């Protein structure tokens, strides 16, 4: 890991440590069902930001394995849906600026990827990663569900957050990441990319003199900095035509640095494995969590 990236992660952990997690759970009668209870979960992240998550807990039995579905790049995080929710606790956390976590800032899409990018302190994406670490922490200390192992899943930004989370939290025993966002990697500045990575090129076209600053402030978030710290097995999917989230070269570099990585390369439209990989991922997760 580069010294700068190492400092960033240390500062992030220190910023989280300044505030107690302070988890509050509220059962959602409307969305709870016969087989599981749904909770609205709130907890505190860095800078004192209160964050929201959906939490689904099977009605009977336990302890259960947990699946954390990291949020995509967008304003809405899904309410829990997975065929595994009858056998696993499922948490869908949000980051600052997403709906229900937008009391202080309201994220824009496109726009979030360059929000506050002028300085390291103001760059919101550096705190987005902190927010999802705090989500894992909150899950670990909530008192409602007895937990076993934790797996992380996600696509795009969510894929990047899942991999970073596994690198920083040893309680994670498996990661299924699809097309993880190449934020911070030099490939993210290539011209001609689609959104969301294209936001960086948009910004630099308008502010060409800020290139060095942008490279510096995003660089600490390059997953290549932490890939070798991931001890959990990783199922990673990429698409050969992806020009907006995880260009193939980045995905292959990432897979090479992760100690235990099952890389699946798909020749689909752009986004990776689509339906075929979704089925593979479901079986893989069930196997890793012992609920197959």
């Amino acid at each position: 890991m580069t010294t700068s990236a190492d400092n960033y992660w240390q500062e992030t952990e220190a910023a989280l440590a300044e505030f107690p997690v302070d988890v509050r759970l509220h059962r959602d009668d409307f969305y709870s069902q016969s087989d599981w209870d749904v909770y609205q979960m709130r907890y505190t992240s860095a800078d004192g930001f209160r964050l929201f998550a959906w939490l689904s807990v099977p009605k009977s039995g336990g302890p259960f394995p947990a699946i954390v579905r990291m949020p995509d790049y967008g304003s809405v995080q899904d309410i829990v849906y997975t065929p595994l929710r009858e056998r696993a606790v499922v948490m869908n956390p949000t980051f600052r600026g997403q709906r229900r976590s937008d009391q202080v800032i309201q994220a824009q899409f496109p726009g979030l990827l360059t929000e506050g990018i002028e300085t390291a302190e103001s760059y919101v994406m550096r705190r987005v990663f902190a927010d999802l670490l705090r989500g894992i922490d909150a899950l670990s200390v909530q008192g409602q569900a007895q937990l076993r192992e934790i797996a992380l899943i996600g696509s795009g930004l969510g894929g990047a957050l899942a991999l970073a989370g596994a690198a920083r939290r040893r309680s994670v025993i498996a990661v299924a990441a699809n097309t993880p966002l190449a934020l911070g990697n030099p490939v993210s500045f290539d011209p001609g990319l689609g959104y969301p990575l294209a936001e960086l090129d948009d910004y630099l076209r308008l502010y060409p003199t800020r290139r060095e600053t942008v490279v510096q402030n995003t660089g600490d978030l390059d997953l290549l900095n932490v890939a070798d710290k991931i001890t959990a097995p990783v199922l990673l999917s990429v698409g050969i035509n992806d020009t907006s989230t995880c260009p193939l070269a980045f995905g292959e570099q990432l897979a090479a640095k992760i100690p235990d990585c099952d890389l699946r390369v798909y020749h689909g439209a752009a986004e990776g494995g689509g339906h075929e990989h979704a089925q593979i991922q479901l079986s893989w997760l069930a196997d890793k969590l012992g609920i197959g």
Partner: protein
Amino acid sequence: MATQQDLESFITEVTCPDDFDDFWSVTLDQLSRISLKPVITADPMRSNDDVHVFNVTYLSLGGLEISAWYCLPAHGSGPFPIIVNFPGYKSEPPVRRDWGKKGVAVLSVAVRGKLKSSGEFNPGYPGLLTAGLESKETYGYRGVIADCVRGVDFIRSRPEIDPERIYACGSSQGGGLTLITSALRPEIKAGVAGYPFLCCYPEAMTMFRSYPYDELACYARAYPGEKEGMLDTLRYYDAVNFAPRIKCPMVVGIALDDEVCPPETSYAAYSALTGHKELWLFPNSGHGNAHEYPGQERAWLEGQIGLKAAVA
């Protein structure tokens, strides 16, 4: 995975209310009495050598301000053909710069409740599908649909757009809104509805336990006495009832392993189309993830617009 036989044998219980046309006629009449008041603001950060990007606002039903991304080709003076892109349920309306090089404009509508149009109506996600379900007059989708119709009105107000070449597309909720808006606005010349949502609510809400349709199942469970009224309201918002009123060529794309928008329900909307129609079936694909779909959509629209011959 559903088979074509499953699709063809499916019969929905949805019927069309006798006053369906009257209801929408009144709604469109109310809409027409509201001044459009368009505001167009250049977005230099999103603009590039090929496309000028603007943020647009206009007024819609209830006087709500609706936002949209408006992408115009940077080269040529027009009038340009245009595609109006309707958004999915939870996804952000995309900035569609990809058509600019081909000389095609795109309007990407952020219907009420979306991030850029949530100032006065913000039921959240989940939440939109059940907002105001108490009656057909109060249902939130009345405004959502009006916002899409109003997008076409905005397009028709623009001198740089060719009013004879307006096309529509969208997936999931955007697919449903493509069908519905095309029925209400004959100015749309052709459309592509991918994995359409908003079809056959009584069946769709029970076939899987996935959102957004499951919001309706939750509503029915929470308010059992109101289920009948809910289903009656939804008849006025079912794409199956709009489909016979569509006069332009329409494609419906269906993934046979779709567990969000059941393929049978989307097929029912396709079956109800009475004009020129095409069916794209994607076996071994789920909701929104058929690899072939984006390329087919692009090629078909290019053919309709006249950029080149459509692929078979």
